[in-house]
């Protein structure tokens, strides 16, 4: 009876959703591999939940298609799509016991008798709630309720699993536990999963690929590391992680390299595409951990006015202000000896991979 549903592909093609005049989802295309976990990440109102609701069949699109394993599912009502969903508030049926909640989808599908009991036991064991069959949802903690919601969605062996901000209501420690648990379950079952979240750490840790959404569009769809290291738009750059933005101008070009003169007073040689011509105004984006403070001046260093230093776990966060008035965040690992005084120059670390963006003047 240990049927393992094979992962399905999910293709979203040129999907557009309108609410009245407003475009909630604007021409989104995603090709999701079997067994993959994809996070839809973005600020509230970016269309990520709407996209999820279209896939589930709760909202009808104005244009575009959704395919599972190549077959369009757009004409099917929600109750015939076989797509599992876990809501942020879990939406358990409060008048039914845990076992009845898990059995709900099976009964709706006409499964009867011992098969129902077997699947209840199997999926409650999977989420480690075997002893809670006869409890009502309100007698469970938030984490337990979420496990029930998960078991309920998984018991019908859906082709795709959708998770709508499933960890948002949990406290910090429990959230990490549940993220690991969901990831483990998803791996075991090989389920293609879409996770909607506004929490970038969650997206980074759970997802195989992240689609960063803004204003109804997908800004970048890539592996978490690639999104962090090589953000393709200024929005992604600002939304993922913390970053410092420095103003500058391309002062020389030579093959794939551009020399950028920073307004803060330093000249940096960086790899740059041909889009950045001579004299083009640019924004240089550097992660806080890719900046360092030094007491020695140099052509690739710029002077800063050091501000507060805050210990943050194993790290030390420095605040500094450039001569052109930009506030910088610099992170270094905390060392035993206190940093020497007079570190008033800022520079890129050796492994720094800053990103250039065009700047409108």
């Amino acid at each position, binding site marked *: 009876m240990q049927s393992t549903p094979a992962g399905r592909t999910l293709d979203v093609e040129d999907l557009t959703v309108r609410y009245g005049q407003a475009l909630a989802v604007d021409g989104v295309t995603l090709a999701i591999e079997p067994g993959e976990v994809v996070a839809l990440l973005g600020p509230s109102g970016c269309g990520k939940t709407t996209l999820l*609701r279209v896939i*589930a*069949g*709760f909202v009808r699109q104005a244009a575009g298609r959704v395919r599972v394993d190549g077959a369009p599912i757009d004409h099917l*009502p*929600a*109750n*015939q*799509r*076989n*797509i*599992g*969903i876990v*809501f942020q*508030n879990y*939406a*358990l*049926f*409060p*008048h039914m016991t845990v076992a009845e909640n898990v059995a*709900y*989808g099976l009964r*709706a*599908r006409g499964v009867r008798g011992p098969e129902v009991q077997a699947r209840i036991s199997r999926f409650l064991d999977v989420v480690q709630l075997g002893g809670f069959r006869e409890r*009502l*949802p*309100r007698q469970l903690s938030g984490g337990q309720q979420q496990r029930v919601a998960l078991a*309920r*969605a998984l018991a*019908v062996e859906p082709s795709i699993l959708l998770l709508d901000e499933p960890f948002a209501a949990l406290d910090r420690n429990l959230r990490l536990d549940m993220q690991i648990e969901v990831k483990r379950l998803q791996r075991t079952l090989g389920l293609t999963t879409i996770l909607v979240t506004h929490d970038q750490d969650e997206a980074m840790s759970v997802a195989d690929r992240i689609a960063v959404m803004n204003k109804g569009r997908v800004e970048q769809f890539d592996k978490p590391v690639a999104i962090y290291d090589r953000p393709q738009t200024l929005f992604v750059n600002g939304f993922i992680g913390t970053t410092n933005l420095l103003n500058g101008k391309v002062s020389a070009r030579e093959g794939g390299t551009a020399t950028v003169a920073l307004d803060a007073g330093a000249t940096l040689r960086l790899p740059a595409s041909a889009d950045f011509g001579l004299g083009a105004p640019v924004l240089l984006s550097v992660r806080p951990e890719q900046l360092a403070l030094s007491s020695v001046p140099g052509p690739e260093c710029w002077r800063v006015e050091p501000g507060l230093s805050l210990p943050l776990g194993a790290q030390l966060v420095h605040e500094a202000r450039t001569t052109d008035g930009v506030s910088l965040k610099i992170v270094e690992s905390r060392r035993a000896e206190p940093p020497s005084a007079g570190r008033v120059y800022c520079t890129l670390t050796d492994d720094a991979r800053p990103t250039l963006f065009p700047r409108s003047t």
Partner: protein
Amino acid sequence: MRKAAEWQLALPLALAFASIFLAPLLMLVGVSFFNDDKITQPGFGQWAKFLGDPFSYKVIADTMLLGVKTVCATVLIGYPLALVYLDASPRVQKVLIFIIVMPLLLSVVVRTFAWIVVLGREGVVNTVLMQIGVISEPLRLLQTELGLVISLTQIEMPLMLLPLISVMSRLDPNMRDASAALGASRWRTLFTVIVPLSMPGLVAGCLLVFASSTTAFISQTVIGGVRLIYLPLLIWQQSLVVFNWPLAAVVSITLLVSVLSVVSALSYLGRRSSGYLHG
């Protein structure tokens, strides 16, 4: 000191209730235990007379049945209406709630007389039905139980809809989506999720409609006429026509007890199902 002051604040209301509600009720009970209409000889004569007469039981049964029929009609019409309300856009909801509450803003007398115009021999219903050729003779709707149930259904509808809507709009809308995603049809979702969870509102609505329609003296007499006899009419006849106050008291207590027993049975069911709401 302060604790004492708080309960003292409730004293005026308590006194008012005791003097204008509890005392007359006790007097009513007292009066029922007199044999003669002059209220001079104590005894169980009137109770024996009322409870020994098979006609009394028919009137009690008819009254309760009228309540049950009105409750059924308001549920059958009101529940789908509440579902429509739930699905409507906020703007449409505002219009609907105005239409639902409007009957409450009119006096019962006005509403009842309006129904005479609608249901009469040459009223709206008969005229329309005759013109489109469904019937050749005008239907008798006034002074029938059918006509009474029709008008009571409209008159009592707000009492069903308001509690129902208030409970239903507190239900988590994700629950319906969750049910659909699990493969349940709309009907399955309605009967296994929405109906059980809206039970407290439904029970409260039934309770109000039942209590209100069994005691609706004006509608019962104006639309039902004198040939349909319900307990309130009996009370009126005994107290203001025949002036047999002890018997009127007996009938009053009978009405009170019958309505209260049905109402408490209903509210027991309501309490049992209300625990899920905030779960």
